[in-house]
């Protein structure tokens, strides 16, 4: 139980995918301009991450390891992730056309989101068992959404602040992301060992 909690805390705060490993920066900068979009994207990524980690664990341990097919590792992982994203896209398109439109190209881009492939590879490297990988996937998604929503909140405020002409647009966004990452470094002492 304790290790599960540690995995959770580590994935959400200490080793956050976006702000510590710098994975998944593309949607982090692309979809964080409005709060609602960020929540939608966060939910979609969390869903894909939790399912991807569990399904990939099953395939990895029950098929790849058993038959000695570790060369197929990446192909299988990408296949699983791409199919999951396709399913999510179908659901969103059916039940929330407005969200589907506002997410635009970023929704199919989850397929090649490095955060998700990174998650699956970390899971393999760290040799998590099934329960651990499910928790790891879910909490990583949660961490991603948390950062995305925070960024969206800050960027919504930024629209009304007096930014020097030279920093407007992309540069102030990158500076904000950098300061957020610095702030998250403060969590690094939270878990020793």
């Amino acid at each position, binding site marked *: 139980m304790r290790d599960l909690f540690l995995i959770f805390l580590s994935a959400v705060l200490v080793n956050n995918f976006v702000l510590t490993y710098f994975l998944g920066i593309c949607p982090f900068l692309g979809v964080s301009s409005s709060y609602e979009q960020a929540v939608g994207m966060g939910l979609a990524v969390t869903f894909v991450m939790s399912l991807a980690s569990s399904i990939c664990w099953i395939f990895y341990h029950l098929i790849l390891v058993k*038959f000695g*097919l570790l060369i*197929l590792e990446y192909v*299988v992982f990408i*296949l*699983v992730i791409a*199919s999951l994203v*396709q399913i999510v896209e179908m659901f969103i398109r059916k039940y929330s056309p407005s969200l589907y439109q506002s997410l635009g190209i970023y929704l199919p881009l989850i397929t090649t989101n490095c955060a998700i492939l990174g998650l699956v590879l970390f899971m393999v490297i760290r040799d998590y068992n099934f329960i651990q990988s499910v928790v790891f996937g879910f909490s990583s998604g949660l961490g991603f959404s948390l950062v995305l929503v925070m960024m969206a909140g800050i960027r919504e405020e930024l629209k009304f602040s007096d930014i020097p002409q030279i920093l407007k647009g992309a540069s102030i966004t990158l500076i904000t992301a950098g300061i957020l990452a610095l702030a998250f470094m403060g969590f690094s002492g939270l878990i020793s060992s």
Partner: protein
Amino acid sequence: MGKILISLFSLGGIAFVFGLILSILDKRLKVEEDRKVEEVLSLLPGINCGACGFKGCRDFAQAVVKENNIFGGCIPGGEEVNKKLAKVLGIKERSFSSKKVVVLCSAEEGEKYSSFEYRGPETCFLANISLANIDCRYGCLGFGDCVEVCPTQALKVEKGRVYVDYKKCIGCGKCVEVCPRGVLKLIDKEDKVYVGCNNREKGVSTKKVCSKGCIGCGLCTKLIRNSPFYLEEGLAKIDYSKLKSISSEEVVKVIEKCPVKAIKLLQEK
């Protein structure tokens, strides 16, 4: 050999399972998209200007198909697009005239006098609710709020004056909405004459704040018979319905006679 077969079958099996799931879900979650909407959408300019009153071209197309009505029509598309729209929907055509925007203030920086230096936020909206940067209470403030909202970048500010690029202007009227002083006005695309001043004060007061302003002398109303020009609160205006019956020579005569050259002729592009 055995390994190759195993990898072939396992990867194929996994792909097959996912393909099966996806194709089942695709059938279950099929979204019915009206082909008529797509057809209407392909006719529209696709610039999402919002001049029709809807959020964008897609919204407009959906509403058009749903209600079988083209409402106010597509303003940037003009007559041609609206005719095609009516044809697709199978309803009777209405006549549409496309618009363009004119700037009712032709004074440059320096020609509009200001008795103090303005150091506030550089937007027309905020300058207008404070004391403003020019003395004229009706003229263009020149901070370019209109430039920012223009979906086709047809407007630009030079020397404190707004210029319109008529090759780009689609007559959506977004700039008219955003101008706090009503300096911008939509006129029919065919019309070529406008009064380049918005100052409604008496001639003496106008002269005090601007060297280019209309002084309300009324010369334009008297020079020609059945003149389309008329005075309203010390400002010359044009009755565009009358203008069509006036020959262009007579209009040119009036333009040349105007003592402050406030009446403008748009050059044919």
